[in-house]
């Protein structure tokens, strides 16, 4: 068969990309080795948090993506449970306050609406927060979404617009002739195409190898605890300053004395529509191992109750880990590969995949159609690894 473009990967990035390509009038094929949204896109929380994005291009893209999310339910004809309740970054120590001051300054320069608040204001916004937490940064721009619904809604709408979705199809090879992509070969068929978009997330390096590319992405694990459902109690998306500090500067963990800090544990918390709390988080490199660790679950429990003491009375009913595609320099790869004509990469978003999915898909579609993109994407180009 033939396709205008082949999207590899049925996670949120691949499905978004397929949707924006189909919306632009192309007839792409999406190939996924398992099912839509079965791997990392359903093993995460639903944060669309702007405050956690690195100032600069990641933050500006995230703000643009948040604007796309506002109308996405309508556009896709599916309630993806997008809400924008605002977000809080809780600050426990002076060290963290100092870090956040630098972050907030840069975020403000990028046009973000953020403010420092004290304990009184914090507890009026979010009564469950401990009186011992002196400060927080608040932004009304933070939101959340159901990542599973979003992924499936992108896929469903893409299919309605003419995208051919092949689940249960594993890519086994990519044919490149004279430096140009000519076909994608799966365990079921050969799809002739001049354009291939590698949206395979943590598996992007395996796809890259098929074209001789060495993509520096590896799985970074996150743990999430799931509580029993309780009546709506948490009003905002919650993280803490340590979450941002570790994300922007992983080496900070090594110097830490607090055992939870050493394990890379920080706070992330939201309450789902059904009432369950999703509580994280930890970041670690453990290959593709998907088994939960007891010390990390214990650490997350301990750490989260420092901020939200009421959690002590809530039963945790499940836990899971999810893989996040971590790119060597902490920012994703989005764009064409200069050495292979017709090859694109959209992968390596780590924990920002949900927030950046709409803008990533739209940007790739614009690139494939040689249209002008909203942002200069040079900093995210794969070429940065070719030097």
């Amino acid at each position, binding site marked *: 068969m033939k396709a205008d473009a082949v999207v590899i990967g049925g996670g949120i990035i691949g499905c978004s990309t397929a949707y924006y390509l189909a919306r632009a009038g192309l007839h792409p094929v999406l190939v996924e080795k398992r099912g839509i949204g079965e791997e990392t896109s359903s093993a995460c929380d639903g944060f669309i948090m702007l405050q956690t994005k690195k100032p600069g291009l990641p933050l500006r893209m995230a703000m643009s993506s948040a604007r796309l999310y506002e109308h996405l339910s309508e556009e896709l004809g599916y309630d993806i449970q997008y809400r924008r309740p605002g977000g809080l970054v809780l600050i426990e120590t002076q060290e963290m306050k100092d870090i956040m001051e630098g972050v907030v300054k840069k975020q403000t320069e990028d046009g973000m609406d953020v403010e420092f608040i004290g304990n009184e204001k914090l507890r009026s916004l979010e009564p*469950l927060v401990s009186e011992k937490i002196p400060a927080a940064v608040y932004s009304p721009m933070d939101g959340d979404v159901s990542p599973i619904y979003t992924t499936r809604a992108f896929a469903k709408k893409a299919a309605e617009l003419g995208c051919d979705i092949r689940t249960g199809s594993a890519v086994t090879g990519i044919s490149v002739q004279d430096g140009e992509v000519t076909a994608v070969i799966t365990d079921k068929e050969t799809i002739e195409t001049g354009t291939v978009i590698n949206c395979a997330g943590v598996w992007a390096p395996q796809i890259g190898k098929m074209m001789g590319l060495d993509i520096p992405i590896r799985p970074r694990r996150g743990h999430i605890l799931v509580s029993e459902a*309780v009546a709506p109690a948490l009003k905002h998306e919650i993280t803490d300053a340590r979450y941002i500090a570790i994300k922007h500067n992983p080496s900070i963990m090594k110097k830490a004395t607090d055992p939870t800090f050493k394990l890379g544990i920080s706070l992330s918390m939201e309450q789902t529509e059904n009432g369950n709390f999703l509580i994280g988080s930890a970041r670690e490199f453990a290959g593709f191992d998907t088994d939960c660790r007891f010390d990390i679950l214990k650490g997350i429990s301990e750490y989260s109750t420092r901020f939200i*003491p009421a959690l002590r009375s809530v039963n945790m009913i499940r*836990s899971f880990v999810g893989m996040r595609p971590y790119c060597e320099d902490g920012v994703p790869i989005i764009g064409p590969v200069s050495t292979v004509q017709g090859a694109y990469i959209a992968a390596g978003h780590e924990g920002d995949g949900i927030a950046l999915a709409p803008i990533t898909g739209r940007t790739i579609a614009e690139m494939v159609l040689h249209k002008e993109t909203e942002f200069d994407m040079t900093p995210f180009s794969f070429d940065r690894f070719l030097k």
Partner: protein
Amino acid sequence: MSRIGQHPILEYKKGKPVTFTFDGNVMQGFEGESIASALHAAGIRKLHESEVKKRPRGLFCAIGNCSSCLCRVDGRENVRICIEPLHEGMKVESQNSKAVLKPVVTPGSIREEETIETDVLVIGGGPAGLNAAIESASHGLKVVMLDRNALLGGQLNKQTHKFFGSEKAKAGTRGFVIAQELEEKLAQYDTIDIEKETTALGYFKDGTVMAESRGRVLSYRAKATIIATGASERTLIFPGNDLPGIYGAGAVQTLMNIDGIMPGQTAVMVGGGNIGLIVSYQLLQAGVNVAAVVEAAPHFGGYQVHANKLRRAGVPILTGHTVKYAFGGDSLEGVVITALDEHFSPVPGTEQTIKADILCMAVGLSPMTEMFFQAGCDMKFIPQLGGYVPRIDEYHRTSVPGLYAAGDAGGVEEATSAQLTGRIAALCAAKDLGAAGDFERQFAEYQSQLSELRAGPLGQKILSGLDRMKDEGGVSYAKF
């Protein structure tokens, strides 16, 4: 509903009388019995309403599995009152919506508990677990046994009938007496640490077992872990199957045989296996009228002797029948049953209405396999053994080194074989730890008892299940 005055077999040991409230109404009960039982004794079966459709909810499993009984107790939400002991002055309330969180202003830090090391960890204190603990201790091993209930013995406590099998396997003794005897034997070993009201929650890849004990998180690591978590009751799908008054057979046994409470006036039993037949007879013993035993298959599956006892009492056993729907307001008022043809399809025009306030479900058990899945055991779907079970060899080793399966958790059978598989798993664990002196003789002894037990017609199902296990490679890594 009321309390059973005189029972032909049981004498109920009751705590002191206590007063408590349910939704503001003052009630009496006995210290230590479950809150749900005390409410049943007071005639209350509707415990709360479902959150969305406002349907009445009552007790179903009575062993803390199903969460149908959640209430607010002294301000604590989501309390499973079927396993929550009653105390003086308790304030019990229907919980008709999700729990409401109250901010706790003074957080203490979570205590850093050391991981407790032991030779053998036994998870579950029923017939399999008790025997596994005793067997392990008899080889000089240090044992920790976890059970989520306040009372050890698991389902043995509810069994008032005399067991079959060989004398060594305690034939002729009533289940609750066996439980008492096992607990006495257990008490003879000071190397067995018994942790009651402790729920094992997780098996981690490094062998750590996480447990919750009265609000504390504990962790254990053992050289050998024997999982004897038992099984949970199944139910059937039909309109009205969530009405209060519809119980698992085990719940009816708990009410009658442990807490001495009449579950109602008239019962319909679904399921003609041994559990259905035995519990029907126990209902009669408690003074409950049994209107019918309904069995979908063309023949009932239990022992003839149990069926005969029912027939002599005038209870019809309706084979080739099933429940079409149940009806009632706040609790069950009756059921409509229907005949089935040879393809198990309802035969139109055969509906009968039976007025009943108890519908008792004895439609099989599913092994409680969560821990095996968490441990990454190779799991096999073997219908004869109750569904998904860990692949085990004849020494009851799972595919995960150091992890053993015993009792119904490794394949649904019955209480006597659970005792034996508990023995075998522990004996083999002791052997693997180099602690079983006279292994060959003891192993042969337990095996022969088990074979004897499985020799009857009811053993055929288990044996065919075990054959299937063998086909799945279950014996491939057995080594002496």
